[in-house]
């Protein structure tokens, strides 16, 4: 029976070409059907999941050319195997499932968080509510860190900086790339500095690296608000709004931590030493 070896799993894959070559009539007079079946067969491969090998061939027409069948079966199984291996390895380096948690935001949360970033003085309750020992998704708790606002703020900052450079006739398309990589490098340096300071001051914290990236990324909102105000209101507006956003982000950062004054002490220590170095 022709269907049986098709529906068997990975191990039987090697047997299939033999079975097909033994009993299949070669049908070279129908190339269009071959193409259609190939794409449809490819689609069913994608839908049927990983690692199971070719399951269902639409009709017997696909078996008309055993060599292309073999090639397609092998290629698709290789692709699915590679995809599953890549997913597994990628999951080891970048925890994808944990990343999804940071992007679970909704509009209300984003609006409230943006307001909190520029005006953190009226907020009373900074505790992050937990749910079975893991923090609640940002959709439900305004104090939870997320990665959506930092990513969007980063991109908006790059675009607004490009716009500002354009009004000064200093724009060129490479500038966008240079600004983007420069800002990214500063972010990486800052996160590494915070990690180093946390390690040196031996605090026991459950803040992961991604949390630190999120917290460091919140300042992009202040930065692009400043640049925007500078575009609209000139130099004075730029400096005033920058000062306001700096103070706001500072107050925000000092208050958000889940471990009381420890993180703020760490950050204070780090920033004081950095500013001392810069002063020198």
């Amino acid at each position, binding site marked *: 029976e022709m269907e049986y070896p098709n529906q068997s799993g990975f191990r039987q894959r090697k047997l299939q070409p033999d079975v097909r070559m033994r009993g299949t009539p070669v049908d070279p007079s129908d190339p269009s059907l071959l193409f259609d079946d190939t794409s449809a067969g490819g689609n069913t491969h994608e839908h049927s999941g990983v690692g199971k090998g070719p399951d269902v061939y639409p009709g017997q027409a696909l078996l008309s050319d055993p060599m292309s069948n073999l090639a397609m079966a092998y290629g698709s199984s290789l692709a699915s195997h590679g995809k599953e291996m890549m997913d597994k390895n990628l999951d080891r380096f970048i925890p994808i499932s944990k990343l999804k948690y940071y992007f679970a935001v909704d509009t209300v949360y984003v609006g409230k968080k943006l307001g909190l970033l520029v005006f953190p003085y009226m907020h009373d309750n900074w505790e992050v509510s937990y749910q079975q020992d893991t923090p609640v998704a940002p959709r439900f708790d305004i104090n939870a860190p997320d990665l959506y606002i930092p990513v969007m703020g980063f991109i908006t900052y790059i675009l607004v900086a490009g716009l500002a450079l354009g009004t000064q006739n200093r724009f060129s398309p490479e500038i966008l790339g240079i600004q983007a990589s420069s800002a990214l490098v500063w972010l990486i340096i800052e996160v590494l500095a915070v990690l180093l300071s946390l*390690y040196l*001051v*031996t605090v026991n914290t459950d803040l992961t690296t991604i949390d630190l990236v999120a917290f460091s990324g919140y300042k992009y909102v202040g930065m692009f608000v400043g640049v925007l105000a500078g575009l609209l209101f000139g130099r004075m507006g730029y400096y005033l709004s920058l000062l306001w956003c700096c103070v706001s982000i500072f107050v925000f950062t000092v208050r958000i931590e889940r471990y009381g004054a420890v993180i703020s002490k760490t950050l204070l220590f780090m920033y004081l030493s950095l500013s001392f170095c810069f002063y020198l």
Partner: protein
Amino acid sequence: MAFTLYALIQTAILFTNAVAVLHEERFLSKIGWGAEQGIGGFGDEPGIKAQLLNLIRSVRTVMRVPLIAVNSVCIVLLLLFG
């Protein structure tokens, strides 16, 4: 100050090289930063100096071999591409 990712990689390699060449006997012990002088107490307040010494020692131990490989690659690349 426009940094590129390439500058960041260069900085990281240079910093790691700098930490890795701090010799234990000839230099660190002389200025009181030797490995045995840091592990003062086993309480839960090791202090910043002990942590720093620990960090230097662990960076030296861990990164010696990978640094050899990375430096060789850098030398070859700089020879080829200037």
